[in-house]
């Protein structure tokens, strides 16, 4: 099975994020970047599918500047076969991303597109759904388990929903977005890293894809969350109840 996996370069979740004083974005100096953790889960799943089926191809795709090569190389070191980087310096909203991915899917004709359910930087959780709509393909979001029929023409996905687990079945090709508990991604092994040096990262200028990526959304302002204030110690239960009632106004 040929699987296309999307990879987004995002700030390391361990990094302390600071918002620029003018609220136009975050301070990017000295930030370490990683593969979006949900995308890393998608890569791992694609590799497991390939290993289980004993064949197929795992193609990584990303959109961004040259620096994204670093994340694609990591994915190749984990075991993906090749990568495509759409060179684009301008910020993109989810719809623009979905439109560019549509073009790539038309070129690559995969049986499956695996995507992180959301990127941990903007938390939009939209690109997968929009891509499915544009392609008119089935979608299974927030997958925590994926199984394929023996003929590889259909799949079932278990999704963790509020009330419990939902199992859905659908025909391929399809879009699946990955949730946290789907798998635990492997480390890139040293032999994998050495092999990845020779794997292809094909660069495509964004204009060559001919998609309308005019932004529909603009970021008006970014603001850091309010600083947490120190708690209070109270002597009695009654005092706590009084404060919850009069000050916090929650009871």
């Amino acid at each position: 099975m040929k699987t296309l996996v999307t990879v987004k370069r995002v700030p390391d979740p361990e990094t302390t994020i600071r918002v620029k004083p003018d609220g136009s974005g975050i301070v990017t100096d000295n930030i370490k970047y990683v593969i979006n953790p949900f995308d890393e889960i998608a890569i791992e799943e694609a590799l497991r599918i390939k290993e289980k089926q004993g064949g197929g191809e795992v193609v990584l795709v990303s959109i961004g500047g040259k620096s994204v090569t670093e994340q694609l190389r990591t994915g190749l070191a984990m075991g993906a076969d090749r990568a495509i980087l759409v060179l684009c310096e301008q910020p993109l909203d989810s719809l623009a991303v979905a439109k560019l991915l549509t073009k790539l899917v038309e070129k690559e004709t995969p049986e499956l597109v695996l995507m992180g359910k959301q990127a941990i930087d903007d938390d939009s959780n939209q690109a997968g759904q929009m891509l499915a709509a544009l392609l008119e393909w089935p979608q299974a979001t927030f997958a925590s388990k994926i199984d394929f029929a023996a003929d590889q023409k259909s799949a079932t996905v278990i999704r963790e929903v509020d009330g419990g687990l939902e199992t859905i079945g659908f025909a391929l090709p399809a879009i699946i977005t990955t949730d946290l508990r789907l798998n635990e991604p492997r480390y890139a092994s040293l032999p994998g890293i050495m092999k990845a040096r020779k794997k292809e990262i094909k660069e495509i200028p964004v204009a060559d894809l001919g998609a309308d990526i005019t932004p529909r959304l603009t970021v008006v302002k970014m603001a850091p969350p309010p600083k947490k204030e120190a708690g209070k110690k109270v002597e009695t239960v009654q005092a706590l109840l009084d404060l919850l009632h009069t000050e916090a106004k929650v009871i």
Partner: protein
Amino acid sequence: MPELYDSCLPLTTLREEEQLFRDTVREFAETRIKPHVMEMDREGKLPRELIDDLFRLGVMGIEIPAIYGGAGANFLMAILAIEELARVDPSVAVCVDVQNTLVNNALVRWLNPEQKARFFPRLVRNAVGAYALSESASGSDAFAMQTQARLDGDSFVLNGRKMWITNGAEAELYLLFANADMTKGYKGITGFVVERDFPGFSVGKKEDTLGIRASSTCELILDDVRVPRENVVGEVGIGYKVAIETLDEGRIGIGAQMLGLAQGAFEAALAYAKERKQFGKAIAEFQAVQFQLAEMATEIEAARLMVYNTARLKESGASFVRQSAMTKYFCSQVGERVASQALEVFGGVGFTKDYPAEKFYRDAKIGKIYEGTSNIQLQTIARTFLGR
């Protein structure tokens, strides 16, 4: 003159794959090793599952060519792995260090193709290696070894005892040195690959050590151990050369271990200094503590430049005997000094096992001892400009 600058990158500038590898080992160390460091130290054991994970990560066959399943990477990669592992646990680091800079390093250089095909796939997959040179009466005076190898038909029969063998408990393959002709003195010394399950071979007691407690240091007992002639490393009688030249690379590895240890101790002290409050403010705000931290960071920087330069010197094919002795000599001092100062930054709690400082301090001491004491390093350095 842009060409001049182009050809002279900073020593600490890593290639893309080196950077990726270092980050991967760091993350592995943080998530897979860190939570178990004190438990492993207490129990004096490296869990087999961790060793298996090290094999999966590919850090046990760094320089072994890809045709045998190794990573086919360079020496600096091994150094980066040792440094990053030591930053979290110097015990794990030395296991990887011995495998790569001593055992694999010697075997890559001295084995014939048939032997490589026999041993390398095991060394990259699951076989831990150990380097068995020292004996109870033959430490710094390595060539005074008493273990003998007597030729008998198609094999050698080995008798004797080896001491202080790192990885002794976990190893399956031992690069072991014995004298095949005592009348020739050191020119009788020969290297053998000895398998753990050879009849007559046994692993003796594990030493109860001050530091790097999770790493095993064992006695090896050879009682009429029959080793096939095909397991001779290089040729009969050149073991002294195999042993001594291998240690030149090994010493850079120990330098990297001490560097990583110092880095780990420093980072722990820095984090604590920012958090610990006395006299109404974080102790990191006191100039005395700042100066201590600054001194530690400076020493670490110097040690790192030395380790990386010596590793790159080795990669370039130039002579590095003097530099590797200097690297181990200096880095073991930095390791001990930084670990000691870091403990002092912690104050009273640094003396307890609730914080990492005391373990780094205990682990540092071995740096001045194994793979040639500091005195031996100084002697090696002096000989490079004074001769014998």
